């Protein structure tokens, strides 16, 4: 089975022109420009931070959706990859003295990929609830290691604070906190988010991505077709882990303090919540889910002390009414429905 990716070299000029005029691509470009300009135009540090927070978890939810939405595996252990990304950054800075952001992000992705390979190798043979429980249990092992401060690296449940990384030798960490975030780090996260979207868009539409979907839809048929199912599941776990690890690494700098809570099953639950809220059956749904989850939490916290209940209620209603389509899938279905009615009339 080929895992060849589509390249621009394969495209005819007409196809390239069509791609450039694609509404989605244009929309993406406009959104990128709007988001990139937002901090400078508004000078609103709170909104910038909120957007940075949302974008980090959007990357995490996108990565998680590779396993759930495309491979059909419900993992309750993705906090392991998110937390690994965070701890890799802070430990590399504290213990190894590495301060360059690019190096830290690459290290975090590699470390998360290794953890993804190990957890994947131990769990991809199982299905459904057994897969969910096995990933949860394996991830909890990492949580316990961090909480117990094994090896003296994590400082237990109090966690570790981290300073701001530099970028390509430029001592940008010396800038005041809000300048660092609004003038530099926010844009790094934005670029990472759009790069993740682009890479996943290509990967999931490549023969590799189509094979994952085939496994999700009918595992037996895929196996009979000669697809090495376990190997492909493992690939999807590693890819997913690396992207979630990148999200964790980016977020570590935003939050500035890393605790074992980011490795806990409740964090896995939040990532699942985001994906479900946005829609696991859609490509962009997880981004909408992450945005919806964080904004909902912030709004609910501001208006009621029963914010846990409010969030639970929203998830209940979304899952009950929209099922796997989530908010994004539901919105798309609504637009299609309205278009059909308009055409009929």
């Amino acid at each position, binding site marked *: 089975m080929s895992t060849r990716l589509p390249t621009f070299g394969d495209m005819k000029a007409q196809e390239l022109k069509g791609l450039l005029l694609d509404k989605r691509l244009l929309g993406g470009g406009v959104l990128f420009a709007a988001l990139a300009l937002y901090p400078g135009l508004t000078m609103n540090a709170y909104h910038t931070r909120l957007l940075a927070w949302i974008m980090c978890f959007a990357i995490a939810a996108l990565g998680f959706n590779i396993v759930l939405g495309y491979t059909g595996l419900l993992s309750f252990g993705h906090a392991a990859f998110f937390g690994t990304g965070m701890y890799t950054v802070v430990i590399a800075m504290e213990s190894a003295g590495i301060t360059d952001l690019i190096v830290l992000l690459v290290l975090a992705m590699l470390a998360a990929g290794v953890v993804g390979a190990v957890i994947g190798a131990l769990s991809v043979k199982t299905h459904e609830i057994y897969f969910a429980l096995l990933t949860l249990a394996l991830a909890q092992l990492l949580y316990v290691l961090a909480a117990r401060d094994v090896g003296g690296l994590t400082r237990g449940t*109090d966690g570790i604070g981290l300073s701001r990384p530099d970028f390509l030798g430029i001592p940008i960490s010396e800038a005041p906190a809000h300048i660092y975030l609004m003038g530099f780090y926010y844009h790094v996260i934005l670029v990472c988010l759009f790069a993740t979207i682009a890479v996943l868009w290509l990967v999931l539409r490549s023969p590799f991505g189509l094979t994952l979907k085939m496994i999700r839809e009918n595992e037996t048929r895929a196996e009979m077709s000669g697809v090495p199912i376990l190997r492909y599941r493992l690939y999807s776990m590693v890819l997913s882990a690396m992207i979630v690890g990148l999200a964790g690494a980016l977020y570590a700098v935003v*939050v*500035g303090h890393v605790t074992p809570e980011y490795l806990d099953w409740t964090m896995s639950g939040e990532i699942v919540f985001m994906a479900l809220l946005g829609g696991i059956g859609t490509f962009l749904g997880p981004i909408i889910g992450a945005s919806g989850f964080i904004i909902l939490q*912030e709004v609910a916290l501001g208006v009621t002390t029963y914010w846990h209940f409010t969030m639970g209620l929203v998830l209940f209603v979304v899952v009950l009414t929209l099922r796997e389509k989530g908010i994004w899938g539901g919105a798309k279905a609504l637009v299609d429905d309205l278009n059909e009615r308009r055409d009929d009339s």
Partner: protein
Amino acid sequence: MTKDNSRISRRHFLKGSAAVTALGSLAGCALLQEDFGTDEIDGIPDEPFRIVQMIFESGPPAFYGEEAMNASDMLVDRINDEGGLIGEREIEIVDRLDEDAGPDSLISDVQAMAQEGEVDMLMGIVSSAHSLAVAPAANDQQFPFLVTMPGTYQLFEENPDMEYVVRTAGSNAAGAVGAVRMVEQMDDVETVITIDPDYAWGHDHQEMFEAGLEAVGADVEIVESRYPELGETDYSAHVSAIADAEPDLLFSSLWGGDIATFVSQGVDGGMFEAVDQSLLIGDTGAPLLSSLGGSMPENVWLGGRGGYQPNYRYDEDEAHREFVDEYYERYDQLPGWGAYHEWMGFQALQEGVERAVSIIGDWPTGEQLTAAMNNIAFESPHGQHTMYGPQAAAPAVFGRPTDDHDLPVDHPLLGEFEFIEAAEVNPPEDDPTMDWVDELEPVTG
């Protein structure tokens, strides 16, 4: 409510008083004696002094948060009845943020508050881990943060240059090293079992207690250390194991609902009959005694980092008596540790504003206010509550349960108090806590 049956170790109390007097002088207390007329003060803002509290409103630690919120409401009313800060500017708690939302949300909120500029001070926080995440963020935003409850010694050791953060809660060193000082005075203690919650609070206490015992050369052996989960509901296995081992001393930093559950199951399992005595130092006192009622064993020492017991120096200290009486009258219960921690916080705020205004003759900026709260001392149930730099150094106070008290509750309170001065249970300013504990000197004389 007239008779106080507390007994303070005279030696310790006198030494403590002397030390505090000296520190108070160094702290610039003379400035506080200056007579400043508010007519000459410029720039007192028209709006109230706006505080946002960060506190557990939901989740297991919410009981601690509830006490803190009760005390805050009461103290704000009391201060405002007298005209507000320096009698001129009222206080308003404009919002409360639920710590259960986690550090992500809390840090975002700090950013929003700093940006909007409609809040003068952030106050509160229960969780040590949250304080370690939020305090540097607040400092980055140049947003004054008065940390009132967490005890982690790492707060200022990890972030030594914070200019906008002060902490009025005593460090967890006071409780753990206080327990070491207690063991030094105990006879016939050779074997110890420790049981602490399985997170940083518990591990820090156990490590400091063990290291401190070794440093002072106590002839005791910690035969077993147990770490139940935070929020554990079934301690039966721990109770059976401890009862079977029959140690001379049981040490624990379990707190809140955990210590109440553990002690209750320990009583049912006969554990306290098998153990000679216990040191339960996780901010224990009136709330635990209230929940246990008459079943509280007598062979225990309760207490921790401060004299936060309603009947401790109740008769001698008028301010404490008023605080307890007012709280009881308002909420029909005695104040617990959360309430006392907030009281210390509001006292630091009042003293800090007075000090800053007396120096600069103007209403202070956030930086000036937090600087003015450094190195001050103010009244508390355990005498002067002293800030070593930006954080308090609390004494350790322990007592034994007794029914012999005159407060209007039908459960035991503490008596036979032991006071161990702050200088004996806290490192000198700028000394790393664990290094200091490793070199702890035995108490002599």
